[in-house]
Structures are given as C-alpha cells and as structure tokens.
C-alpha cells in the first residue's frame, strides 16, 4: 500500500516537473521572441541609414526601395567631405561634448556631495528649488535663455554660447546627489578621524566610491550633447561653429535634399556613439540599475 502510494506520488511529481519545464521553455521563448522583435525594430532604421548611405543618388529615392543596392558606392561619403566643414563640425561636437561632460561631472559631483552629505543652512530649501526648476519644461525657458545668451551676453556663434547653459544640469545634480546619498556617511566620519581634510575626503574617499555613478553620468551627458540639435541650431549661424547634428542639415537645399550625403553624415556621426556604447557597456547597464540595488 505504502509503496504503491509512494509510486503514485513520484509519478505525480515527475509530471509536475515536466509541466514546470514546459512552462519555463514557453516563458523563455516568449521573452526571446519579444526581445528579438524589439531589437529588429530598433535596428531597422540604423540598417536603413547605412544602406541608403551607400546607394547612388537615383536609387536612393526609388520606389519600391532596393533592399540591397545593386551598385553600392561610397560617393555619398565623398560628397559629405566635399561640401566642406564636416571635419570642423566633428571637431566642434567633440569640443562641446567633452567640455560639457567634464564640467557636468565635476560640478554635479561637488553639488551632489554637498546636498547629500554636508550640513549647511538652507540645504533642503535650495535643493527643493533646484528640483522645482526641473519641472519647468525646456520650451518655456528656451526663449529667455536665447535672449540672455544672444542679446544680453552677445555670445551668438561662439563656443561659450554652446556650453554655458548646460555647464551643469539640474538633472545631473539630482542624479549625483542620489548616488552620493547611498554612500555610507560613516566613511566620511572615519576619514575625519583619520585626519583627512574636507577637500581630501571628497577626493580620496568619496570620488573613488562614486566612480561608477560618475562614469554613468558622464557617458549620458556626452551622448546627450553629441546628439543635441536644437540649441546649437539656434545659437550658431556660421558654418565653422556648427556641430555635427546641425551641420547635417546643410545637405537640405531650398528645393532638393541630398539624402545620400545626409545618411552618410549620419552614419559618420553615429560611429563614435557606437564605440562609446560598446566600450562602456557595463556602465550603461549600471546606469539603468543605479539606486535600484544597494550594497
């Protein structure tokens, strides 16, 4: 009797195990299918951009479109450089993005540390004001900012105009404060007892621990500024001051547009971003989970 019962139980268990396995396989399949579709959807425009950039001027607007060009050509890339200024735009983008990345990392980490760990009168009030300013949409401040930079400061068409408004952003201060707050305060106390001066505490104790967070902050700032179009478009007018994203628009003429050159330019613009993404992948992943897991 007992053994019989046990056998039935065993069989039931086996059945359950099988069921569980099937559920697992089905679940995983669904996840993979969804992710694959998503990946394809995000990748198609990129592929299309690349394919278009190696088509000739007639086949690029052909309907139905050629999926694989019969006569691939690098002509569009040559035109990008022929128009003149591409190298300068690239340089401008590098300069502006680099300056803003450095300034944001430095200033946001200092401000974030102060808001998270130092006691000073009005700390919370100032922080709430900053936070409140994040609620104001950029479109509202755009025109006053433009008037300030272009009319008041007479900075139109300069590097200063490109970098000053976002030397440090509120969002970055907030982000920095969040991960600074997650660092244990006793380490700062320990450093004070270890005869460490306040600037040195920041430099020797806080910064090394905040490195992953700051790397994320820096990378996101760099990418955002590299891809920024509207503000550089507003405050630059000469060809030499354009950034890449603004420069690409110069392939659009009054009545026609050189789509091939635009696509080729876009490919060239995107390449540094791909490199950044691939090289610093682990930081991007950390950026998504920052603050989510502690310890």
């Amino acid at each position, binding site marked *: 009797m007992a053994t019989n019962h046990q056998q039935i139980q065993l069989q039931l268990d086996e059945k359950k195990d099988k069921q569980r396995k099937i559920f697992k396989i089905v679940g995983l399949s669904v996840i993979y299918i969804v992710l694959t579709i998503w990946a394809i959807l995000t990748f198609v425009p990129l592929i299309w951009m690349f394919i278009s950039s190696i088509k000739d001027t007639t086949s690029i607007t052909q309907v139905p479109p050629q999926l694989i060009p019969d006569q691939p050509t690098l002509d569009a890339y040559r035109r990008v450089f022929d128009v003149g200024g591409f190298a300068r735009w690239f340089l401008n983008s590098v300069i502006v993005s680099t300056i803003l990345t450095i300034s944001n990392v430095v200033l946001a980490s200092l401000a974030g540390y102060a808001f998270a760990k130092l006691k000073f009168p009005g700390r919370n009030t100032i922080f709430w004001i900053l936070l409140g300013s994040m609620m104001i949409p950029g479109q509202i401040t755009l025109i006053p900012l433009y008037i300030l930079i272009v009319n008041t400061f007479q900075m139109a068409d300069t590097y200063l105009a490109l970098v000053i408004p976002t030397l440090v952003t509120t969002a970055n201060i907030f982000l920095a404060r969040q991960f600074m707050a997650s660092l*244990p305060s*006793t*380490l700062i*106390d*320990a*450093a*004070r*007892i*270890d*005869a*460490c*001066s306040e600037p*040195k505490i920041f430099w020797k*104790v806080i910064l*090394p*621990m905040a490195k992953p967070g700051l790397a994320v902050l820096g990378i996101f700032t760099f990418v955002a500024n590299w891809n920024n179009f509207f503000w550089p478009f507003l405050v630059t007018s000469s060809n030499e001051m354009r950034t890449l994203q603004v420069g690409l628009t110069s392939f659009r003429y009054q009545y026609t547009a050189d789509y091939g050159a635009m696509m080729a330019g876009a490919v060239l613009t995107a390449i540094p971003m791909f490199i950044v993404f691939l090289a610093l992948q682990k930081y991007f992943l950390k950026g998504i989970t920052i603050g989510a897991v502690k310890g």
Partner: protein
Amino acid sequence: MSEVRFVNVSKEFEDDNKGKFTAVNDATFTIEDKEFMVFVGPSGCGKTTSLRMIAGLERQTSGDIYIGDRTVNKAHPKDRDIAMVFQDYALYPHMTIRENMSFGLKNLKRPKEEIEKKVSEAAQILSLENLLDRKPRELSGGQRQRVAVGRAIVRNPKVFLFDEPLSNLDAKLRVQMRMELSELHKRLGATIVYVTHDQVEAMTLGTRIVVMNQGEIQQIDTPEELYKNPKNMFVAGFIGSPPMNFVRGRLDGNIVQTVEHALVVPEDKLLKYAEYQGKEVVLGIRPEDVINIEHLPDAPAQNVIEPVIKIVEHLGSEFLVYFGIGEETIVGKISSDYHMEVFKKHQLYINMEKMTLFDPQTQMRIG
C-alpha cells in the same frame, strides 16, 4: 593623563519630524585614565551621540568636554587624540587593508618607515599579516572587524572609541572578540569608551558602566555595584538576564504585603525603610533569589510561596520558571538538579536577604 570628562553636556537635534529633540541631557561624568568604560542602554538612548561628541563628529549644544586636561569643545576630531571603531566598520572599500590602516598616519604626514612599522605591528597583534593586500570586500565579517580595530591601534591614540563593534558578528565570534578586546585593553593600556546595547557585553567588558535611558544618565558604577545596588527600577530592569522581578506591595512593620503573600524583611534592612512604613512600595527580586526549597539544607521558616508554575524553560544547568503573583509574572532562575514540572505547585523560597525596595512614584531605590 587621558581621562575624558563631560560637564553638563547636552545635545539637541533639530529634527524635521520631531522638532527639537534632546538626545543627551545634561551629562556629567569622568572616564578615568586607562579605564574601560561602557555606555549601555536601549536603542536610541543617546549612546552613539555621546561617543560622537567625544570624537568631535558632533558638536555639543551646551556643556564642556575635556580630554586629558584640556577642553576639546571646538577641537577637530584629528586634534583630539582619539580613534574610533564604527559599528559598520567603515573601511574604505577602494583601499587595501594596508592602505586602510595607514590612511590616518599618512594624512598626519608621519614618516614612511614609522607607518610601515606600526601597520605591521598592529597586523601582527590582530593576525592580519596575510590579508594586508586584500580589499575589505574580500574579508569575512570578523576579519573586517579586526581591520577596523587595527586602524585604530596604529594611531596609538589616548582614547579608543568603540560604537557597537560586535553587533554585526555571529554569537560565537562575538564571544571570542569580546575576550580579545579585553586583552587588547590590558595590552594597550589605553582609555577605552565602548558603546553597546547588550548588557551582557557591558557587564563582561566594562571596568565601569554608564547606564543611559532616553538621553539621561541613570547610573555610573562598576558591573558588580550596578547589579547589586541599582539606583532605580530602570537600571534594575536593564541589567541582568533575565531582569529583576518587580512586585507591588505595602510595607507593614517587617512585612511586605503583596496581593498574595506576606514576605518578611530581614531585621538589618528595616532601618533604611523606616520612612516607607505603611506606604506602597515595589519589591525587587532577582531571578536567582527565587530558590527551589529542595536545594536548601534546612527548610526555611518563612518567605516560602507555593505558586503554580506556568512555563518552564530549560537552559541546561538551569530552569527559567515563570509564575504569577497577582497580575505580575515572576521569573525564577533555578538550578536544574531537581525536576520542575509545569502546571504544578512547587515550594519556592524567596531570598529576602537580597531584596531591593523601590518607590513606585519616583522609581528610585529606597535606602
């Protein structure tokens, strides 16, 4: 001379939720040179705040703090000649153990050879020699604890400050570290101020103990004195495990009359209770002063009660037995030589020689 002295020291916090909040109220005490002084009390009573004021990490709202013979009211932590071991160890995660231990001396710009010598000495005392090039995350809890102690030792401070250093260790390691800390104290010959919420730790480590509650110092005494002569019901109830039993009653002549029993007060004690004749009192009895009469050579003539035992807990060599007097539950700690059965009546002798009386209003000890 490295005594630590508080004179009327108070600390108020401006809390967003609670408003003004007094964490330490008017504390005055002296920690003698080379003393192992333990601060004990329930969580939130102001122990850590007191320690941080000694360290200079927190500035007192009022009062004076002396270390040695000078005031340190406004001195920076680095100028106080102290070192501190934190509850969470606070090791710098990005530095190796060696770097962690030498960080303070480097900041003080001591010569390299001296730093190296001190670090290797401390590492030897704490058996950390093989771990010096590792990072804190590669160490076990007990090893991290040692590093934190080592970081304090290399500073060779006048005063060591410990904030619940053992609370993150498992029970076995805690006992071992307790002994090591005791030995370390003898070896270093330094003043130690040690904070814990665990009264067993306090009793085993302290040469003297400060008992705190809600920001107030309740009593400062040796472990023995605290146990034998607690100043008030808080101390009596906090020190000892299980804590002292309290039974309400009235003092009539040489008798404490509880709801159920008339217990006889020894002659020699009556004098100091004279003022409370005919008044309400609280009788305090330690669990070990509840004795199974079978353990006594002669049957006592008085102070024997016969309650129904409600719970018996086995602790190996002892039983903890619980029974009621009126509405109060009393616990006795009784040698397990004789079997005790639950839900049965047992004859128990109350050793009134060791009794304590408290004033029910002020909660202070009488006499």
